[in-house]
């Protein structure tokens, strides 16, 4: 159709697209209001072509990068390309129209060149306050998506460059922290404006036809390279099962079943046989399940392949409707994106442990440990809300121990520093934030350590949680042991000893609940699970065990029991 683009220009354009996405992120970080944006970077920035194919992304949240493909495609299907005019900005967060979950808001803007739509720039970000039944959303005992926040189908929040005031008014009236929402939305818009400007510069420099050809070629390069990578995995049909321990409403466990077929240059992930959808908010919509599988395959293949739609073409996902991996309206979905997603990704690694033992990892802690809270600032009276999450231990891998305390594989967010946390939120003081010895699963290559955080309540606050791995273990592989479980506990002011929220407040689940009011002096303890071990712990280099003991990563008692360590030198 068009002449091939010379290799230098192709590289320049690829890097210009990626660095545009990266700079969109920097703008959001520098100008936004909520720590979940500006400290945690819980957002992603992407460029699409008019067919809804992802052209480029910068490295933010893998789960968002996978789901936004569906958010955008379904939006374009629903509205049609004619709905877009220069200067329009679309806002959207409805999971049953392709959003990952309700807190995740996407903004989409068409980039026009010489009067015609050339591409879309988009970002998706986790809003700290979506107007759910409890502050911060992710209510652990929601039973319908309506309880998870204000649902926005794709609507124009800007039309031809002008704010649509009615839409703003509806949103700001429904969020507990309208000022923060306003600041974060403005940051998202600024990032889209920057991307539009960068695309215009690129088009002016290289010409529309060259940029278009380059984009097409980059998609093909990615697909070709991805297929070659998949061919390096032994063909076969592989199985793995895991379970979501409960759903906040029932005490039932929800098994997930994966049949993974590697056929020449294609991968088919079939979840047939997985449990019916949950009553509570641990369901994944189809886009989330697909995104989790993409995430696994991208982690197993050459990281230098351009990260665009071409990577996804050789991957097929089968997820029967009405199950926990493809739930039906109006089931609640908040935890599907934070909790079920990393577990699905880990299942792909588990399935392939014998096929490509040199490439996979044991299970990570597998939970984002969502802890939500909100209240009124005692000094100013302003309402605040926050989505707090934690890292986990990662699984051991051949030749390397798992990393300690890193966010689960579906995200790549940063923690909120204690100093930022306490400055922004008057409700807690953080007394302890540390690694926990012995939390890494024993193995020739040890699982990474989880940790604990202890918070003292300093002003009345309403809390919710949506954690996992309080009842099940992060599994090891190839005879490696499990990592330690996590969880959440409470110690009321004036009493002593940690109790579960079931024991103290009669919640249905110890790890998934919402709207609990705490008073000054109460203490909350969050424990983050460790990663699974890889290989037989008795094969571990004794020198590494000694190092672990000396650094306090493993106690002497566990070193003796798990690794056959000779004990305290005398």
């Amino acid at each position, binding site marked *: 159709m068009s002449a091939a683009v010379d290799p230098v220009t192709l590289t320049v354009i690829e890097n210009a697209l990626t*660095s545009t996405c990266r700079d969109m992120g920097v703008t959001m970080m520098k100008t*936004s209001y909520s720590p979940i944006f*500006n400290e945690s970077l819980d957002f992603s920035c992407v460029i699409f072509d008019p067919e809804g194919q992802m052209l480029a992304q910068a490295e933010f949240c893998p789960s968002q990068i996978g789901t936004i493909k569906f958010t955008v495609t379904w939006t374009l299907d629903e509205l049609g390309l004619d709905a877009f005019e220069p200067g329009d900005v679309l806002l959207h967060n409805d999971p049953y129209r392709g959003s990952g979950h309700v807190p995740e808001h996407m903004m989409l803007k068409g980039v026009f060149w010489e009067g015609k739509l050339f591409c879309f720039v988009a970002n998706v970000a986790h809003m700290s306050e979506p107007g759910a039944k409890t502050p911060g959303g992710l209510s652990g005992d929601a039973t319908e998506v309506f309880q998870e926040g204000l649902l926005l189908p794709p609507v124009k929040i800007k039309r031809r460059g002008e704010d649509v005031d009615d839409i703003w008014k509806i949103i700001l009236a429904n969020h507990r922290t309208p000022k923060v929402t306003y600041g974060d939305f403005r940051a998202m*818009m600024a990032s889209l404006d920057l991307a539009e400007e960068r695309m215009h510069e690129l088009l002016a420099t290289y010409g529309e036809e060259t940029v278009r050809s380059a984009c097409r070629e980059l998609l093909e390069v990615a697909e070709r390279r991805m297929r070659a990578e998949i061919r390096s995995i032994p063909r076969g049909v592989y199985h793995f099962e895991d379970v979501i321990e409960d759903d906040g409403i029932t005490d039932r466990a929800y098994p997930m079943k994966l049949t993974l077929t590697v056929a020449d240059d294609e991968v088919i992930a079939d979840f047939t046989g997985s449990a019916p959808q949950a009553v509570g908010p641990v369901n994944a919509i189809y886009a989330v399940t697909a995104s989790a599988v993409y995430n696994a395959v991208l982690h197993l293949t050459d990281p230098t392949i351009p990260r665009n739609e071409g990577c996804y073409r050789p991957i097929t996902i089968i997820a029967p409707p009405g199950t926990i991996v493809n739930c039906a309206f109006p089931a609640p979905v908040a935890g599907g994106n934070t909790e079920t997603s990393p577990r699905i990704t880990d299942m792909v690694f588990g399935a392939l442990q014998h096929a490509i033992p040199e490439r996979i990892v044991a299970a990570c802690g597998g939970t984002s440990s969502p802890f939500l809270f909100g209240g009124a600032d005692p000094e100013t009276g302003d309402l605040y809300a926050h989505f707090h999450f934690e890292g986990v231990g990662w699984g051991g891998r051949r030749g390397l121990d798992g990393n300690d305390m890193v966010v689960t594989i579906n995200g790549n967010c940063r923690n909120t520093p204690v100093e930022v946390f306490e400055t922004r939120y008057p409700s807690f003081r953080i007394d302890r934030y540390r690694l926990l010895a012995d939390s890494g699963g024993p193995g020739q290559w040890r699982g990474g350590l989880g940790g604990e955080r202890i918070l003292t309540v300093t002003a009345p606050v309403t809390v919710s949680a949506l954690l996992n791995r309080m009842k099940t273990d992060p599994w090891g592989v190839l005879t490696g042991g499990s990592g330690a479980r996590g969880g959440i506990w409470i110690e009321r002011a004036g009493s002593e000893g940690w109790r579960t929220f079931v024991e103290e407040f009669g919640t249905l689940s110890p790890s998934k609940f919402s709207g609990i009011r705490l008073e000054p002096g109460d203490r909350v303890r969050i424990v983050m699970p460790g990663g699974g071990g890889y290989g037989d712990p008795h094969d571990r280099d004794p020198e590494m065990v000694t190092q672990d003991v000396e650094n306090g990563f493993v106690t002497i008692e566990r070193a003796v029991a798990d690794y056959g360590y000779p004990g305290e030198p005398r």
Partner: protein
Amino acid sequence: MNDSLAAGVQVGIDTGGTFTDLAAFDPVTGRIVTVKTPSMPSEPGSALVNALAAANLDPASVEGLIHGTTVATNALIERTGARVTLLISAGHEDVPYIQRINRQTLYNLRWQKPRPLLRSRRDSIGVEERLDSHGRVVVPLDRAALEQTCRALAVSEPEAVAICFLFSYVNPEHELEAKAIVERVLPGVPVSVSHEVAPIWREYERTSTVVADAYLKPLMGRYVGSLTRSLGEEGLRAPWTIMKSNGGVMRAEAAAANPIQTAQSGPAGGMLAAATFGVQAGLPDLLTLDMGGTSADVGIILGGEQRHTTEYEIEWGVPAAIPLIDIKSIGAGGGSIAWQDAGGLLRVGPESARATPGPACYGLGGVRPTVTDANLMLGRIDPGYFLGGRMRLDRGLAEAALAPLAADAGMDIVELASSIVEIANENMASAIKMVSLERGYDPRRFALFAFGGAGPLHAASVARAMRIPKVLVPLYPGNASAMGMLLADLRVDKVWTQAFRSTEVDAALVDRQFTRIRDAAIADLRAEGFAGQPSIAYAISMRYLGQNYEFDAPIPAGTVTPETLQQAFDAFGDIHAERYGYRIDNEVIELVSFRVTAAGARVKPRLEATPDAQESAARPSRMVHFRGAGFLESAVYRRYAMPSGSRLSGPCVIEEAGSTTLVEPGTTAIVLPDGQIVIETNAAGGMKR
């Protein structure tokens, strides 16, 4: 060129891994003198004294000495700093290990979280104390327990102590008390305190920075101490200064007390030189390539300005929050060693022969083949004119060093030498891509600024491979970093940190504080020997209330009033709108800190060559090897004998004492009026416009 200079001379000395470069400027005559001498890694200070002697400079006549050093850089890269004990708020001992919980790249299961500079997790010790976010005491500092801890530490003879307490940037009292206790119980042990090193919020970034500072302190203290002694013995009376990573200078004692500020000391001078030379040549947009003996540093100059950042990382995820000029370093220099990897592939660097033993051809005992040995075999450098003839290179030794590798690789020696040069060029091209392409800058729109002893030898090939249309070779390229140091102004920054909202800021209080830190800044300038009229700038770091990242907006220097504050708020809105495309009128602005910058301008050298009419430009031609063309007879010229306006077609060689410029076939070199050389590479094909 070695006749001695009059009093009042300014000297810049840049010590690299292989060579120590000197540039001296006599403000009376406007003359520049340059000298290159070998570095002495075992006694880095001696190299400075030698350089002064080689330049025939009487230290007593020196009015200012600015030194760029790689002592800190190397200790951080090679992890050879001190064993640091970290004293940190109890309950938060694992801050250096937990870090920010994100990953360097997505989709890489082999990634390993970086290790902190601490030697053991047990070296991070909790101290009972706690402030809240307003700086109010929640838990008083347990002095007795801290004393106990210090006494226990004394037994193990700690090398350095770092202190970081939560919210110390709001209220430094606990840190100051702890510092006093440590100094009393552990006399002589260097202590770094977080609110002094980096008064920023975010405990991980501040902890990492203060640990790095303590990590460098014993080393930098010894270095500055011994150098001060040797320079004093030589008769230096002027205070001497060290180049900071941000392109300013600080007194040597101050550098010993704040060593982390020198993490990028060496390369900063080169970037100052690049900006000035580029503007002078009408080429304000530059990619810079500083290739010395040990490493190559690449950077970018946009519109005549360096890119500044505060995001220095010792490695990914281990930050040191210091202001610096953005530079990327790789292990590719003349001394980089060529070797074969396990898979049989030919590799060059990052290991370097450094100053000792140096490349084989130096005849100092080196036996492993280096890039310089390869260049010599290819006729690209003249064995009789290295360092202007002050060092003879031995072709036989180079050949002997290359021979075993040639046999292993199944190549003849010339083919091997040519491949080594090619691989070194590719490594540098990759680094240049990182600062240009990866940030969305098209290298074809830039000129390549080539300096360092080896830069002009390799630049034309690198430029052609990347289709960079022009190469700019400054005057005295082998000493450009040292010359850049002569361009640095004295600069003192003072900060007062106190949060206000724009609705309730006290103009009178701000005025008093600005006056206080301005006077302190001027006093520091005077202490550095500056007698002139300082230029003073005030700025306030601000953000919209709720944002987490602030930036500086200017406020008129002088009496602060509600009106001038309003001007600053307006300026903030303007900058915000320019950077991010919007402003929020009537939004409350949060004032975070107040900064005074006092600059003492120094007499700058005129960057012009003084052509030597005595010497004839043309030298006997020689055979030089070019990849793809083989050996070609190439004209040889002495650089400073060529009149401006000269046009030379490649292949040819332009020689000077500190460097050699190679003009490849098909390219043209032009001598500019100021004596700089531009090489037209004719390589910018494929551009639309």
